[in-house]
């Protein structure tokens, strides 16, 4: 039993995916998330167990539409998908189609082997469905499943992402597009790692990913090419910065465990042993955020990063207000921030008295 298994307890580990990696790199300073994700702890259940459930459900309607869109694209040997891909010049006329099997936990290793074998073979135009890639995240190997990989005749590889949000007149929800771009960048990174390990040139994997979405108010697909170079460099930087999880885990005391069978006070003290870095953005990205928010009450970070910065980086609301009221700054490097806060407090009082 590894130390990560000990942290999780007897339950089956939750798998990392591109979404969780994207979220992890969105807040790389959060050791709590890094450790819990590495150990595969069921965060929604843990949050519920300690009395801070989050709501991260997905609507059945949204799932149904996403599935039917994907099914429509892949029907008849991906006829519609190929046509859509050709419209952005990513696919050739005569292409093969390889389905590597269904999305199941038991077939992970087998599918990864088949993905390797397919990619190691000679370059031919093909679509690879359900491929499985790996990526090292914080010293852990993570399995990843892009929607599709498109193989061009010229030997270039493109990651294809199928999403069910609409592109209306060439525009889509920017938050959703940037989310999809980060996820696709995770796949590009993993695919490049795989090619390198096979002795190929990793630059064969294009930084142009293809996003396939329904156009306007119909289910007619539209493909757009996204350049994810910026997301790639951010990801690379964040992944190297991500403190090595194994050293974090090794430094934890023996009694720290997130076994859901443990009593709540034990779970809470385990959580306290791993520092979190809460920001309001976590509320939409991490299942444990409601608890971390509770824990962070009274800090300026809980009011948002811009607020904290505007307050000169001072950690707690209490000391902000004390400094604004004229208390002497505890350290010399806070003198400037304190002067600004005093001026702000004076101006506010003056304006409100008018």
């Amino acid at each position: 039993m590894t130390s990560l298994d000990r942290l999780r307890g007897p339950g089956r580990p939750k798998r990392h995916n591109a979404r969780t990696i994207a979220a992890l790199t969105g807040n790389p300073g959060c050791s709590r998330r890094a450790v819990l994700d590495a150990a595969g702890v069921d965060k929604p259940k843990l949050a519920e167990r300690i009395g801070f459930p989050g709501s991260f459900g997905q609507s059945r309607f949204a799932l149904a539409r996403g599935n039917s869109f994907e099914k429509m694209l892949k029907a008849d040997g991906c006829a519609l998908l190929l046509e859509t891909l050709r419209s952005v010049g990513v696919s050739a006329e005569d292409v093969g189609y390889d389905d590597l099997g269904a999305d199941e936990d038991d077939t992970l290793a087998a599918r990864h082997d088949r993905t390797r074998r397919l990619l190691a073979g000679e370059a031919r135009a093909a679509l690879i469905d359900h491929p499985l890639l790996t990526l090292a995240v914080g010293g852990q190997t993570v399995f990843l499943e892009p929607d599709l990989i498109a193989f061009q005749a010229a030997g270039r590889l493109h990651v294809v992402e199928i999403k069910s949000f609409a592109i209306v007149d060439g525009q889509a929800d920017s938050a959703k597009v940037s989310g999809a771009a980060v996820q696709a960048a995770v796949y590009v990174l993993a695919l490049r790692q795989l090619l390198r390990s096979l002795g190929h040139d990793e630059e064969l994997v294009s930084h142009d990913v293809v996003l396939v979405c329904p156009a306007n108010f119909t289910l007619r697909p539209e493909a757009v090419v996204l350049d994810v170079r910026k997301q790639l460099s951010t990801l690379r930087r964040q992944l190297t910065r991500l403190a090595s999880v194994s050293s974090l885990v090794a430094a934890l005391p023996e009694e720290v465990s997130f076994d859901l069978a443990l009593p709540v006070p034990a779970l809470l003290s385990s959580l306290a042993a791993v520092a979190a870095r809460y920001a309001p953005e976590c509320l939409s990205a991490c299942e444990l955020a409601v608890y971390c928010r509770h824990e962070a009450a009274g800090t300026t970070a809980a009011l948002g990063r811009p607020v904290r910065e505007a307050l000169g980086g001072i950690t707690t609301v209490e000391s902000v207000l004390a400094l604004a009221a004229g208390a002497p700054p505890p350290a010399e490097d806070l003198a400037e921030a304190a002067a600004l806060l005093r001026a702000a407090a004076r101006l506010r009082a003056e304006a409100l008295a008018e």
Partner: protein
Amino acid sequence: MSTLTALARAQAYADGRAAPIATVRHLHVHERPLVLIPLAMAGEAHAPLAALVGTEAAVPRLLVVAQPRNRDERFAFVSSLASVVLPYLESFTGLAEPIAVDRGRDVRYRFVDAPQVWVPNAGGVDFLRLLGRSTRFRTVDGEYPVEPGVPLLGRWLTFLANSAEVPGSSLLLNAVQALGLHWTTGQSSAEDASLAALLAWISPPAGSSVFEAARLAEQSAPAGPATDPDFDNRVLAPLMSAASVDLPRLTEVLRDVLTPTWELMWRTLELLRELPIGTRVAGRWDGDRDTYSAFVQHLADGGPPQPRRDGAVAAAARLHRLENAATRYAVQRAFDDPLVMAEYRLSGAAFAGVVTLAKADRIDDTGKRPVLRPRIMVRASEPVRVEAGAALTSPARPAQKATVISITGSDVLLELSGGMGRKLTAEPGSVPEVGERLLLTTLSEAYRPGGSFPDPDQTPWTHGGPPVFDQAE
């Protein structure tokens, strides 16, 4: 985020109640607004599910789509929405007033009032924009005919959504933004996006702490347009998967979901009405009435629906108008409201002081003819971060320009021009007197000329050249 607003947030957290960040109301609140709360079907591309709409708090009208995936039912919904919204939008075309243009050489007419639509949040505005996009190109004949109200409502919704992008416009307002303009809470701006949580801070229910009220509010049904996924799975899905949809039951559950938000919307209007109105709000509402009048005229003239996307020239002109509006709005808010001006004082774009010397009858006769150029000395009560030569204005005398001649320590010597009458002696009260407290700022309300742009058929090649009309579109 300015340090001043951030400090207000910290204060609000410590006090356990919202802190004001404005002393006056910066938007027009209509006597008879239309409140519209749209709900969308999850997963579908902007398919409406329901809407609660009305002009009176006591009379909400609920419109429901039994099967949002069915195209005919969707357009039937839009048609019934049009039958409620269009009469309201068109009810302000009764009375018009003449406005002199071109220095009195011509006259144009503008309606004395205009509509005002309220939605809960920015998502509501986006939803209306997309509903407008999906309906304004529909036709009343051809292969898939729709009711005449459908494309017309689409054009109105597009008009409203476009006007909501103009800073300071009050034709389409969203409650979250309107409240956030006047109060700040002790939670993050991400959490403020929930109307219920935001109002819990601004007007907490009696007998519970703000923190409890805000947590409770977070668990209530969202204010749309997206529904709660849990509600979708538990309540909506079983109802809609039935062979024939139980419409009364569906209507009931949707009414239960929408009613709390309906009440919050009217509470928002009440709270905003309690604030004293800013001096320059009426002027901006005049501008809104102008845009409304022009759009009514455009419709009456049989003008085409708004294009899918602006052409290069139209986009540049629109961007220019938006930039001008944003600058004007920022300056007007600061001039109307000492609390907003305080932010500029903190950043050094404004300072307060007392007049220590004044020579009101100073004449500058170095030019062709003598001109009145009084000088005053102001002792600043805070650090001055402007330089000699800068042109300053005082909100008390917006038409007067004060040029900085020199700065010695905290003494600022200023030369005044304008706003003193046409004679060589200043009108009484137009020159600040010794002892008067004065606020001076680099912000200026001066007129900003519109940009000049080429005709669309003269679009330069750098911007794609003249547009080619695609017949297939």
